[in-house]
């Protein structure tokens, strides 16, 4: 029973800490059901009796099996996550994720931040530098989910969006493009090729970012990136941006080789090295043919 209390308190604290209007977890549903049962208990004695009976019956029929298993697995995830955390993250972020001089506090950053940082390989950090770069993730997705569950249990925060292909296909690509060009292109470049910021920091290329990671980055603001909260960009709009980024990644360049998507600089290089180079070769060839 202690474990279920723990998960209950974790859920309530997470609900209290952040007003998440849209990303509602499965645990909210169960909690509101038991709350309505409590209200019913306060009515007349017959209703109370009936209610008790009904609650008892319902509890025996529905709750014990499923809920116990759910809670148990959720707790198991948190427990495993804590274990992974203390092995891989606690050195910098502190034993209780309170942060240290080496790393920020993780209380309240949410599962989304954990999923973004660990699934893109940025965490654990390869080396202290101006900015962490994307690399192959060190943890499996199961482990990442466990770590995320642990951090989520500490102080709540934005959760993993878990976008499906259907979500992305239904999104308004034109709106996503408008939002991308207005909000993202000034650092990530119009085609999402990435560009430098000051002193070794940079807006990374989005060529490998998954739709989930795009939304997570917007919601949590990793590195130098600002947070785009749901007050600025609604969930629907965030999905549209993710869909536009997927379009940038997947759609083949209609005009041939995309030349790194940077526009004029690689184009100029190609024009001079390949175009003029080939034509100077032609000059040499024609010039060498003296005896016609």
């Amino acid at each position, binding site marked *: 029973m202690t474990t279920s209390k723990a998960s209950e308190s974790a859920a309530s604290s997470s609900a209290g800490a952040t007003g998440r209007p849209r990303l509602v977890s499965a645990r909210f549903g169960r909690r509101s059901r038991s709350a309505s049962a409590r209200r019913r208990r306060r009515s007349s004695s017959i209703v109370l009796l009936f209610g008790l009976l009904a609650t008892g019956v319902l509890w025996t029929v529905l709750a014990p099996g499923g809920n116990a298993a759910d809670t148990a697995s959720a707790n198991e995830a948190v427990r495993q996550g804590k274990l992974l955390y203390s092995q891989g993250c606690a050195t910098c972020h502190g034993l209780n994720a309170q942060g240290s001089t080496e790393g920020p506090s993780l209380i309240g950053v949410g599962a989304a931040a954990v999923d973004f940082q660990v699934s893109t390989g940025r965490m654990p950090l390869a080396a202290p530098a101006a900015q962490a770069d994307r690399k192959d993730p060190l943890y499996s997705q199961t482990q990442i989910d466990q770590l995320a569950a642990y951090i989520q249990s500490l102080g709540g925060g934005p959760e993993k969006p878990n976008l499906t292909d259907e979500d992305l296909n239904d999104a308004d690509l034109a709106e996503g493009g408008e939002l991308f*060009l207005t909000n993202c*292109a000034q650092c990530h470049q119009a085609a999402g090729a990435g560009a430098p*910021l000051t002193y*070794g920091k940079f807006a990374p290329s989005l060529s490998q970012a998954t739709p989930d990671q795009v939304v997570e980055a917007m919601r949590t603001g990793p590195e130098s990136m600002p947070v785009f909260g749901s007050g600025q960009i609604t969930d629907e709009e965030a999905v549209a941006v993710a869909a536009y980024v997927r379009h940038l990644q997947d759609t083949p*360049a*209609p005009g041939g080789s*995309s030349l790194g998507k940077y*526009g004029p600089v690689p184009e100029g290089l190609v024009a001079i090295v390949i175009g003029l180079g080939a*034509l100077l070769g032609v000059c040499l060839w024609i010039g060498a043919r003296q005896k016609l």
Partner: protein
Amino acid sequence: MTTASAPTPKFQKRPTPARAVNRAIDERFGTQSAIRRNFNKVFPDHWSFLIGEIALYSFVVLLLTGIYLTLFFDPSNVEVIYNGSYVPLKGVEMSRAYASTLDISFDTRAGLVFRQIHHWAALVFVASIIAHMMRVFFTGAYRKPREVNWLIGIGLLALGLVEGFAGYSLPDDLLSGTGLRIAASIAQSIPVIGTWTSFLVFNGEFPGENFIPRLYVVHILLVPGILLALIGAHMGILWHQKHTDFPGPGKTEHNVVGHRVFPVFAVKSGGFFMLTFAVLALLGGLAQINPIWTFGPYDPAKVSSASQPDWYIGFLDGSTRLMPPWEFRGLGHTIPAVLWPTAVLPGILFTLAALWPFLEAKFTGDKESHNLLQRPREAPTRTAIGAMSLSFYLVLWISGGNDIIAHTFSISLNTMTWAGRIGLIVVPPIAYVITKKLCISLNERDHEIDHHGIETGIIRQLANGEFVEDHRPKPPPVSDYPQVPTDRIPVAIGAGEGEHGKGLVRRAGAAVGGFFTEESEKPAAPGTGSHGGGGQTKH
């Protein structure tokens, strides 16, 4: 024409219809002697003399593809809602200019490939102008009597930049608008007249309401017209003054050695045009250029990171990036920092380049006419100054893309900027010193070989015990093509020895030669036939 004084027909055989027409034209306009004179013009053979032709043929390709694009482009600032094939922009508000460029790219047959060939040709056009200019500079071809053609060349380069930038700005995508915003700011930075200039050009505050139609006229009529006229003058002067050549066997200040225009040079040039078109078409078909759909329609609220101009404006972007933010205020005026790198610097660079032939003549005291070129090493100071200028330009040019270089090679952008600032001051003098020393050393080596021969590697011991190395004398210069010294004054006809029949070009020359040259001013020498224009002449 001579036909009047020679009433008896020269033809033994009955003239073909083509000959008859030809003769009819000649009798009225006297075309034959001019055609013959020009077809017999001799051009020297060196691969580097063909670089200018790349520019000429790219320009022809630009005209051809440009005409196709004008059929579909709508230069209008009017806002429309896009409803074409490109889904990610459906329902987006944009100018007609941008929408019609999208339509050219996605809904016009061969529109995208024509757009891409046009753009690639523009990049190669300017690149070949600069390559040609380097050839002319480093060989001293601009010296008297060719200073005017050098000036025209500078004008062509400057107009090429203007024309390219106008084309870059027409589609009204995000890059175009960003570039124009910068151009407007540069115009405004000019003291006293800046604001007026900007308002005059944009018809009010940027971006104005009818700027694209104005730019369109500049891009498709005004500048191409001037370019065409200058190219005509450039080539007319070249034709009149005749081509320079490197010194070599049989070559003097007073002759031109090489192939006649017809047929050899004409065939080579025709083939070269085809190959230039082919390279540009390959680029246009295989490599995407200026994907305006990725940048989206221009909106002053938006800007993409790594927004760059096309490469030939890159050196000005670089100079702007390197310029410290020094703003001058006083006397009721503000001189923004952007004035120096974007208006003053190119002004100085182009003025110095234009004045160079006169500066060189003044400082060297060389007022002679030169028809023979110099190898770069033969004028160490000039070559060193050229290398210095090029390195200065290159530092600016690289700095124009310093953000992409920084990102690609994981260098701090600030480091790149400071490397550019220091490099701009340090690199050119180093380039000067190294180049000059290199030229002098090469000259010393040449001198050594001329006077002591070539080392053989054979060491012999003399009777007295002394070791000496054998040198063999430098072999006499060999020309690898027929020795055809031809007078600079147009050469007399009828020099062919009837050696047609070997090789397709010669046979073609023999076949067509007579068509153009039979009405010769001087009757052809007996036995030589009436062709005259075929093949290279051998005296």
